[in-house]
């Protein structure tokens, strides 16, 4: 935009029109809405229904202005939120037009006649657009003398959202958001006239992963959060910008806190990343940091009692240092940092392993993983970033074709899902999914039913689990052609590591079609950890361990002697655990790792038990702390600063939100621990680490070869067998979601999905529980007949009783046994029968829709995942 007095002499820029707003000439891009042009000029026109990311509605009529087109004044004031600019238009807003001003005041008065005057008890009070605009543009008193329309209130439309219909101004932002952006049209307008109201269908609550956004965009206090209800007022909140620590989307967020406690989190604005949205997990799952069982002091295992006891930092660090040094000097120590670290913390782990422990036995991938993945990360992922070859959100949005392989966008990276949906909704992006069934995330990126005509593009390419690589090599011609169009993108998700040959196949397909590859891990810390070198074959900055020059470079920066860095590539997570279990490794340094996330939880527990010395850096009790000799408490994300790299490789820096709590980040703990071991890491603060990473720079040598692993055909299930498809749901048993029962109420109920054919062969009736057995045991879930390939069963990875790694001991793509369970039950089914020692997992109650007091608080230790923070 340009505002220039001499505008009439200058030519109108290409694709722009020149108009006059309040006497000022302005050039605006064609198709821009009047309200935005005015806003860019600094003229704020009041509005309620208008939202820049939603389609215009023109419902509230608050933004009326006077408009003159082609020298003719339009007879009625026009809604500036629906009218686009045109050449020669003359617009008068409330600042220069009596008519517009009166129209706006009139609408404001009408909005208020049925609005309750309950601002003092309303959560929105103090940050309410209606309140602000009523004070700014409204009358000082009301002429309304009659009775207001009343409704029962509040109504719970999901376990986390409360609806107050009296306050609602029916701007339809929430319904439009749900319909257009999230694709979850569970809320709609009901009735008509003055009785019109927002509502949900009976028995069908507002089950959306993005429902929290409606609270944020509601311009009045009609939609409020059950969790934040009556907790505080805007004026006593301190708002700190931050970055979400849950998934690799890297959402900007705003944390509102009071007296050292986080009261709520809101989506931050970042057009490059999350626009103005976030998911409910990012919004509501923050109570884990204030859980009562959080560690505040270091603990050491008392030799006499065998129990952990509080200790001083000095004592704990001394014992830890001695133990680790002994382990190092005996058979060595391995490091398992976990996938939720900031880049700085991961870097400290990486440096600690190499310098203090002298080993490359470090791997942050606390999940299924493979050597092929390691090669793929080293060859294709590390060292890229936005503007440096990596795929970005903007690329996804403008891509002609996106093919998601072994990736479930809505469950694994909700903001990627929103972008894919946005791209598909604009009608120029075809989204294909290589998966097993038409999951909600697939459906909503393929079939777009919103305002306007329905769009159908892309689709599901069904394949047996484990057959993704094979399928990728033999794509249907239509998909293959689409993928050949310039700008196409191939997305790989977390479970790609479970499919042998998938990375290799993806690289080949990318080479052949020109499509670019995006690797989207599930956890916030994974991408950054790759850069920080917490991998057995990679040093910080993408330097291969095998490259002597790279090692020398690092030795110089770290002030080490030539050849001080370990030369041999290290073991990966499985290798470290196996070595520890068999006594080949003496010590373990464990960050936020939960055995249940690992392919073989039993092996992990055995390793923790067998290792001579275990140091755990943890936030809250976990399987690791149960066996640890020393537990060192670390700061949760909210109490430290740092940087996450999101899946794009984009640095998402954040400052400390709540300060002076005494909690210290991992990098500081490791630094001090190293000092005790006579090693200087210089990682006292995240800022110092960040500086060092900057100085270090990234690897400029030749990258290792991309993996070339042949894709084996998936096994054929025999009678009574099936191939297991599984992935994690967004809201599940993860320990970072602890303490938030309202959020758990919107988790998707755990069910086992199988095709009608598979069910028929088992003699399974619809919803009859099915028992799935693997090498480690069995679990029973209610079944749901779903359109998917025969001989496949799908289970949620870690929801309620369905904790696949632990109960079955196998993962995506493996053969499992199926049997119809005897007792048909309406609930999600009993937890497994063959593990009676394990306490029932209350998280199964998450299936009770709309329950306001769901599970959460009482989870047992072994139900946690994504172990604490660390």
């Amino acid at each position: 935009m340009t505002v220039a007095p001499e505008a009439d002499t200058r030519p109108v820029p290409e694709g722009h029109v020149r108009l006059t707003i309040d006497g000022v000439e302005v050039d605006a891009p064609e198709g821009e809405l009047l309200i935005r042009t005015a806003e860019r000029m600094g003229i704020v026109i009041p509005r309620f229904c208008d939202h820049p990311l939603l389609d215009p509605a023109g419902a509230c009529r608050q933004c009326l202005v006077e408009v003159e087109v082609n020298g003719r004044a339009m007879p009625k004031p026009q809604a500036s939120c629906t009218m686009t600019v045109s050449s020669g238009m003359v617009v008068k807003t409330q600042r220069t037009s009596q008519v517009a001003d009166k129209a706006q005041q009139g609408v404001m008065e009408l909005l208020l006649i049925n609005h309750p005057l309950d601002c003092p008890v309303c959560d929105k009070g103090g940050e309410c657009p209606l309140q602000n605009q009523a004070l700014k543009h409204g009358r000082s008193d009301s002429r309304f003398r009659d009775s207001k329309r009343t409704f029962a209130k509040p109504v719970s439309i999901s376990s986390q959202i409360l609806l107050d219909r009296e306050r609602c101004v029916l701007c339809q932002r929430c319904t439009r958001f749900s319909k257009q952006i999230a694709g979850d049209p569970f809320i709609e307008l009901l009735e008509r006239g003055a009785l019109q109201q927002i509502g949900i269908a009976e028995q069908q609550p507002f089950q959306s992963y993005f429902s929290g956004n409606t609270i944020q965009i509601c311009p009045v206090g009609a939609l409020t959060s059950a969790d934040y209800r009556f907790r505080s007022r805007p004026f006593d909140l301190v708002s700190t910008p931050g970055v979400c620590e849950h998934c690799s989307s890297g959402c900007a967020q705003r944390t509102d806190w009071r007296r050292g406690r986080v009261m709520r989190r809101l989506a931050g604005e970042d057009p490059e990343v999350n626009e103005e949205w976030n998911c409910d997990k990012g919004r509501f799952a923050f109570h884990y940091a204030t859980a009562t069982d959080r560690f505040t002091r270091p603990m050491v295992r008392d030799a006499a009692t065998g129990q952990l006891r509080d200790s001083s930092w000095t004592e704990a660090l001394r014992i830890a240092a001695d133990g680790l040094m002994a382990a190092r000097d005996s058979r060595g120590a391995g490091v398992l940092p976990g996938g939720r670290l900031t880049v700085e913390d991961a870097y400290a782990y990486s440096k600690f392993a190499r310098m203090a422990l002298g080993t490359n036995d470090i791997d942050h991938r606390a999940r299924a993983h493979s050597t092929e993945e390691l090669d793929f990360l080293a060859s294709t992922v590390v060292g890229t970033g936005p503007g440096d070859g990596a795929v970005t959100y903007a690329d996804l949005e403008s891509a002609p074709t996106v093919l998601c392989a072994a990736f479930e966008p809505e469950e694994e990276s909700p903001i990627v899902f929103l972008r894919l949906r946005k791209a598909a909704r604009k009608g120029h992006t075809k989204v294909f999914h290589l998966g097993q069934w038409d999951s909600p995330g697939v459906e909503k990126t393929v079939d777009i039913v919103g305002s306007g005509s329905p769009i159908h593009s892309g689709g599901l390419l069904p394949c047996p689990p484990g057959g993704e690589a094979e399928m990728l090599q033999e794509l249907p011609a239509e998909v293959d052609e689409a993928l050949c169009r310039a700008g196409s993108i191939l997305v790989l998700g977390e479970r790609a590591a479970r499919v042998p040959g998938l990375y290799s196949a993806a690289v080949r397909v990318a080479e052949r079609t020109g499509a670019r590859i995006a690797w989207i891990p599930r956890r916030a810390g994974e991408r950054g950890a790759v850069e920080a070198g917490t991998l057995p074959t990679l040093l910080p900055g993408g330097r291969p361990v095998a490259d002597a020059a790279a090692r020398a470079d690092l030795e110089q920066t770290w002030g080490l002697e030539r050849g001080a860095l370990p030369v041999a590539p290290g073991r990966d997570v499985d290798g470290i655990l196996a070595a520890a279990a068999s006594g080949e490794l003496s010590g373990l340094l464990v960050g936020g790792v939960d055995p249940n996330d690992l392919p073989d939880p039993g092996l992990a527990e055995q390793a923790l038990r067998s290792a001579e010395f275990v140091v755990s850096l943890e936030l809250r009790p976990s399987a690791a702390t149960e066996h640890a000799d020393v537990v060192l408490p670390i700061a949760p994300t909210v109490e430290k600063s740092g940087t996450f790299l999101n899946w794009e490789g984009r640095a998402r820096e954040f400052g400390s939100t709540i300060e002076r709590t005494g909690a210290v980040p991992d990098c500081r703990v490791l630094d001090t621990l190293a000092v005790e071991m006579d090693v200087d890491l210089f990682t006292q603060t995240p800022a110092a680490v960040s500086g060092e990473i900057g100085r270090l720079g990234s690897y400029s040598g030749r990258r290792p070869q991309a993996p070339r692993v042949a894709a084996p055909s998936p096994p054929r299930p025999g009678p009574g067998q099936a191939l297991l498809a599984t992935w994690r749901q967004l809201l599940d048993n993860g320990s970072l979601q602890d303490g938030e029962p309202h959020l758990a109420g919107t988790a998707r109920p755990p069910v086992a999905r199988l095709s009608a054919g598979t069910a028929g062969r088992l003699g399974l009736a619809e919803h009859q529980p099915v028992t799935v057995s693997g090498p480690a045991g069995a679990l029973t879930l209610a079944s749901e007949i779903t359109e998917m390939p025969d001989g496949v069963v799908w289970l949620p990875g870690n929801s309620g009783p369905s904790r696949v790694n632990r109960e079955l001991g196998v993962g995506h793509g493996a053969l499992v046994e199926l049997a119809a369970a005897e007792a048909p039950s309406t609930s999600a089914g009993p937890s497994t029968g063959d593990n009676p020692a394990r306490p029932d997992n209350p998280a199964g109650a998450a299936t009770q829709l709309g329950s306001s007091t769901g599970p959460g608080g009482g989870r047992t230790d072994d139900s946690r995942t994504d172990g604490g923070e660390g």
Partner: protein
Amino acid sequence: MTEANAQQGSPASRETAPLTPVLTRRWLSPESWTLSTYEQLEGYTALRTALRADPDQLVELVKSAGLRGRGGAGFPAGVKWGFMPKEPSKPHYLVINADEGEPGTCKDVPLMMADPHSLIEGCIIASYAMRANHCMIYVRGEALHCVRRLHHAVREAYDAGYLGTNVLGSGFDLDIVVHAGAGAYICGEETALLDSLEGKRGQPRLKPPFPAQAGLYSCPTTVNNVETIASVPYIVNGGSDWFRAMGREKSPGPKIYSISGHVENPGQYEAPLGTTLRELLELAGGMKDGIPLKFWTPGGSSTPLFTADHLDVPLDFEGATEAGSMLGTTALMIFNETVSVPWAVMKWTQFYEHESCGKCTPCREGCFWLAQVLERMVDGRGTEEDIDTLLDVCDNILGRSFCALGDGAVSPITSGIKYFREEFLALCDRNEGARGTQDERDDKAGEHGRSQAGDPALAGAAR
């Protein structure tokens, strides 16, 4: 029965009154709704003529005939048809708006009851002209009998080869779907009708895009009134000059005036556009029981009221507008001296309050407020201030609402106060006169009201 009231243009009456039975010509024939009767009375002859012509010729014919939309707005039908893209890249749709809900209006339902085939013939010709292969007739759900007759007539037309594939061997395909609405006044608004037809909530859409670009299922669509489309076969048969011979220069053709209320013979009277109420009253046998006329609506309750002073206003689009009202649907509701204007206005406002779709603030909240104030006034609890409030609220609704429903809702109030302010004042006077007792009532009822004003404690917390 409505047909019984339809006035046939007998030779005797033609000399004294300007009746022009065109659309209503067949209404009194025995079993007029059957295909056989229709065919006997020149039925489907126009269709054969039309199918021989080029579609664009038909559009030109309708343009030159000057046929204006009969649904209320009076937009030239030929021009509207001309907006449809010439080369179909997407399916084209013709949608007939038969959701006749305007209070006082009773012309489309009788037409479809008595002569459904004229509408169907019109639909086929119009669809052919617009290159549409699908036509929907959206009928008001309450008119159940009418829906049945239409269904029957459409079935007859299919059986006779007028509908379906290859209509009369011309190679033109057309399917007609009769759809019953669910009883919402707003669905008479064309875009709300389209949404409703798509199975969505009936609320008006944002324009642009206009239906001719993206209407039903985002495809080019024309929405026409029943009477408009039913006129088309006659224009095809009679030609534009014949059509223009009736009515006035800018509003040619005949029009069905539905006269209701305090007249001797209420019913449908088809007369050229521009006929005055004085002439129509003569046709309808004059005022009932000779009680003088007090006020009337020229085109349903959404058009500002007229009084006895407007008896000679020519009832065509221009004439009604010049006199400060609108032609609307030519639903003439006649009220005699016995009717209280505020009461009638209240009833109408209650209708709009009930029928407001709720999408936009001015109409949703405004009608709610207006109805309450009027109810209070009629109940004798109004004040003079209320009249000003009414007018100002009307001003805040008129031209501020999303669609024309809000504009229509305020016209009885503003025109009622304009012509009959003293009646509204009289209600307030009664209020004043009853001060003695009223004061006591106020004291009781107003205790809280006053304390509310004086008591800051209540200002915030009480709703």
